[in-house]
């Protein structure tokens, strides 16, 4: 969802100014995210999930001026979604019946975390030479074999292997070197 953050936020800013088309577009996109969010957490009661999607849309509509434009829109959306979910559990009193093994889902990270990780990875890869970064993307993220990745750029399987290995080694050193500078808010 982080990839979508900038686009969604731009739509929201236009919607706040009264742009109805941007607003309809925003709500339609957020509906997809909300369906995924509630669908995963209420897999036993799909009709509840759709009710919650609608409730959340209405809540966002009523409280749209509680969004601070300096903050990520996705954080705002998921905070409201989580609030509505907790409210749903409270009303339907299912709290006590959630088995402990499934409780993890309640606290599961939103799409925000994997998206953050993806963003961090691509940010790191951007610091490597482009050809080497492309080989790492092809083999480690897209899942091609060394031979397939090599064929595309005209390298032998062994050369790809060495390139990827050196690239990963360089990457593993970089975040540590950066940790001091980028820590904190």
């Amino acid at each position: 969802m982080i990839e979508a953050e900038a686009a969604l936020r731009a739509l929201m800013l236009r919607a706040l100014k009264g742009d109805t088309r941007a607003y309809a577009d925003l709500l339609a996109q957020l509906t997809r995210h909300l369906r995924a969010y509630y669908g995963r957490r209420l897999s036993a009661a799909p009709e509840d999930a759709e009710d919650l999607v609608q409730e959340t849309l209405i809540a966002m509509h009523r409280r749209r001026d509680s969004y601070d434009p300096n903050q990520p829109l996705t954080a705002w959306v998921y905070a409201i979604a989580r609030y509505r979910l907790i409210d749903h559990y409270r009303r339907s009193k299912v709290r006590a019946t959630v088995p402990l093994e499934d409780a993890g889902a309640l606290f599961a990270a939103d799409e925000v975390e994997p998206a953050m990780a993806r963003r961090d990875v691509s940010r790191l890869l951007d610091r490597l030479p482009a050809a080497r970064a492309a080989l790492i993307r092809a083999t480690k993220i897209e899942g091609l074999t060394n031979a397939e990745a090599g064929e595309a750029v005209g390298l032998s399987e062994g050369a790809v292997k060495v390139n990827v290995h050196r690239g990963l080694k360089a990457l593993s050193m970089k975040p540590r070197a950066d940790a001091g500078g980028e820590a904190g808010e």
Partner: protein
Amino acid sequence: MKTDDLISALSERLEPTSPRAPLWAMALWIVGGLAVSAALMLTVLGLRPDFMTAMGTGMFWTKFTYTLALGGIGLWLAERMGRPGVQIGRPARMLQSLVIGFIVLAAIRYFTAPAADHARMLMGHSARLCPCYILALSVPLLLATLVAMRRLAPTNPTLTGFAAGLAAGGMAAFVYAFSCNESAMPFVAAWYTLPVLICGLVGAVIGRFALRW
């Protein structure tokens, strides 16, 4: 209703608004609360008799600064908590360091003073009344602040109620400082801070239910 229909209904009903819009409504409530609280103070308690002469002393201003900061940072914290998904680290830390810092400074004054002065510095002549007066003055402010918070969308009603209560208590202590003629820092650190914290707890209990939406 199908979700697609809901979306078109909502977007047809869209009116332009601004994230600053809630702040005006909230400010109105809080100014109203301050006015009622100040009127109570002036009619029931009265200004401190030595108001003009006390203006020359440091403690006069210290009391106002401390209580105004409590109220102001409390309001800031509550406002942040009223907006879903916003990090509250900075105002929360500032409020914490303000209270701890003030208590530490007061403790230094207390322990570096001769033991004969200790009772006077800590208990003054109104230690029992002061927290009660501040709590009484905080009632209109707490109501106003909680109503104001309902204009936003707090996703943690209990904690938001606590912040609103601290803000209301801080503002009530500020109002009370116009009436109170105590002038020792340890007194202020103890008997001003205590009712502010109590007001925060009351706000948390009320907010838990009143701030749901």
